């Protein structure tokens, strides 16, 4: 008997749906779920050349305008990173009411019963880079750098814990581009196993030189705005942002909420950066998510693909899609709009599927001109409104062959 996550190893079909009682997002499209929704409908990308720092090559990215980021509370000044400031703006966005929902959860269950699992692949590395630059130029350390509250992986999760007064389990999950979907899976387990009654989850990543030059070194940065799923796609555009969701234990009061139904996780066991060519690991994650959700492939109305825009990634994912869904299921990718937000992608793109359910539309694939003719699935180019969307899936895959799929939907009987 091996430990691979085939359905027989899971007792996941008994895992109950959990209500998503609030969520918010911040990315190049702007602050709040409404701005993301409007951008998805318009299909106009939010990418431009990097402004936060110069690069010695041409690139496009989905950047949040620095001037718009709030300052953190003086008592938490040590935690002030780009990541933390993006987090703060996101939880405080009044229209989405995420902060109020967290406060209500604390009142309802007690702070000990509200946890946080936060995905990130960058943490405060932008500030660490500035620290090394200062050291190189001045030969001494600036006093503003703080290893524990800025650089370490758990820094932004801790910032939110203190900002919001959460006392439940608090940890960071960092599995590259699947980080925040893994965080959703952990949040679901904490509630299902009875450890927490509510968990703030999702993820946050910010632009930095390491990822910008790192992906350039792998030769997968596009010189134009990225074109996921397109016949002429030639690489990624980076983005940054936050996608945060509050998940709570089942309650009749939340029956009107979109629910988190299933999370599937797997590994490729193939290569550190290249996906399995046939999408074998990706298909396992998708099937595991469906099994945990207790629904069939044909029930899924829309799949938000990982669709980064590299030749290999998109091909591999489409092979996996064909294995799991055949060719009729609608799917698309949104990284042409936001850029690839790496450790935040699972949070932001799960919110894309949340919007699709809530506002009854199929998000289109920004920057797509002509679908790669080898793809046989039903790729959505332009957003289509006024259609029922009951169940969705969101895929994210990361370095290390780390795969996730997240199923949302209306609560089923």
């Amino acid at each position: 008997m091996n430990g691979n996550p085939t359905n027989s190893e899971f007792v996941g079909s008994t895992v109950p749906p959990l209500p998503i009682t609030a969520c918010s997002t911040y990315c190049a499209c702007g602050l709040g779920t409404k701005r993301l929704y409007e951008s998805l409908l318009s299909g106009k990308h939010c990418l431009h050349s990097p402004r936060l720092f110069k690069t010695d090559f041409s690139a496009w990215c989905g950047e949040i305008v620095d001037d718009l980021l709030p300052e953190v509370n003086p008592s938490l000044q040590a935690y002030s990173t780009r990541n933390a400031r993006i987090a703060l703006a996101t939880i405080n966005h009044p229209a989405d009411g995420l902060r109020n929902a967290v406060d209500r959860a604390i009142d309802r269950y007690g702070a000990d019963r509200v946890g946080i699992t936060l995905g990130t692949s960058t943490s405060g590395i932008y500030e660490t880079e500035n620290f090394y630059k200062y050291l190189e130029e001045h030969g001494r350390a600036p006093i503003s750098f703080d290893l524990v509250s800025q650089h370490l992986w758990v820094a932004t999760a801790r910032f939110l814990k203190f900002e919001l007064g959460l006392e439940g389990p608090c940890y960071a999950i960092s599995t590259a581009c699947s980080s925040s979907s893994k965080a959703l899976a952990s949040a679901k387990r904490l509630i299902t196993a009875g450890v927490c009654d509510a968990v703030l989850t999702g993820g946050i990543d910010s632009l930095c030189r390491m990822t910008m030059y790192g992906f350039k070194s792998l030769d997968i940065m596009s010189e134009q705005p990225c074109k996921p799923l397109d016949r002429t796609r030639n690489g990624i555009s980076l983005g940054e942002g936050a996608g945060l969701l509050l998940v709570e234990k089942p309650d009749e009061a939340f029956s009107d909420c979109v629910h988190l139904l299933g999370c599937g996780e797997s590994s490729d066991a193939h290569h550190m950066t290249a996906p399995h060519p046939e999408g074998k690991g990706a298909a396992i994650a998708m099937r595991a998510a469906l099994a945990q959700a207790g629904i069939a492939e044909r029930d899924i109305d829309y799949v938000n693909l990982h669709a980064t825009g590299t030749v290999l990634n998109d091909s591999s994912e489409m092979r996996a899609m064909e294995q799991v869904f055949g060719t009729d299921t609608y799917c698309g990718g949104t990284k042409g709009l936001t850029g690839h937000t790496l450790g935040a992608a699972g949070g932001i793109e799960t919110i894309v599927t949340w919007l699709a359910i809530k506002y009854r539309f199929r998000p289109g694939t920004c920057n797509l001109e002509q679908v790669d003719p080898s793809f046989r699935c039903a790729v959505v180019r332009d957003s289509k409104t006024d259609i029922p969307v009951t169940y969705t899936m969101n895929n994210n895959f990361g370095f290390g062959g780390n795969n996730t799929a997240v199923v949302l939907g209306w609560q089923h009987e």
Partner: protein
Amino acid sequence: MNDTIVPSSTVAILGRGVCIPDEEVAAELGLADTGLDASLLPPMVRRRTSLATRVAITAAERACAAAEISRKLPAIFVSSAGESQVTDSLCRSIARHEFPLSPTLFHNSVHNTAAGYWSMATDSMASMQAMAALEDGFALGLLEAWCQLKTIVDRVLLVVFDEAMPAQLLPDNSWTTCAFALALNRNERNRPLMGRPYRQSAPAAVPSVEDFRTRNPAMLALPLFRALRKSDAGHWRITLSSGTRPWVVDLELP
């Protein structure tokens, strides 16, 4: 031993593995056979991966061997700073405008580097988790393992590791490169049983790790590993973190 402590809703500990390459440190801690042996990794990978990844894989392999189970099981890797030496190299290159960056260093900088190489080396397509929680890391890794066993899997491997911190990031630190691994399942006769980790209201009696310079967070696995090694039958409460409300876990040793 304290018979008032009876762990509830337990999971079983099948095997454990430790890797501390510095023999002097291992001897001080009363641990033997903790040397580095990452022979599971292909030679090319072994040369290109950090000590952090190699100690994690050594301990993981030892725990599976001690448990006499297949290495193809879901795994959870916990570390405070992960690939800090790789990150240090990349940050130096960036500060000096030495571009292009090394593509190998870049993809080996992710926090799930050890998890990724472990899945490749063992040909395991199971879920690989990579998490961080500083001084709560071992406790929350155990909690994540416990939650996985109570919800979706019947076996899981937990590996907690830290690498010596680069001096630029933490001047004058004396972190010891180390990894501790446990193989767990839902239930097994005649094995140590562990309840759900929880927070205690009384302050911890173990040394605080608030001084990060002298003691790295992965070392907080030691009290549990010592209790398992002594194997004194009965019920034990083990402290997993420091502070005024530390994480603890109750054990039942056969």
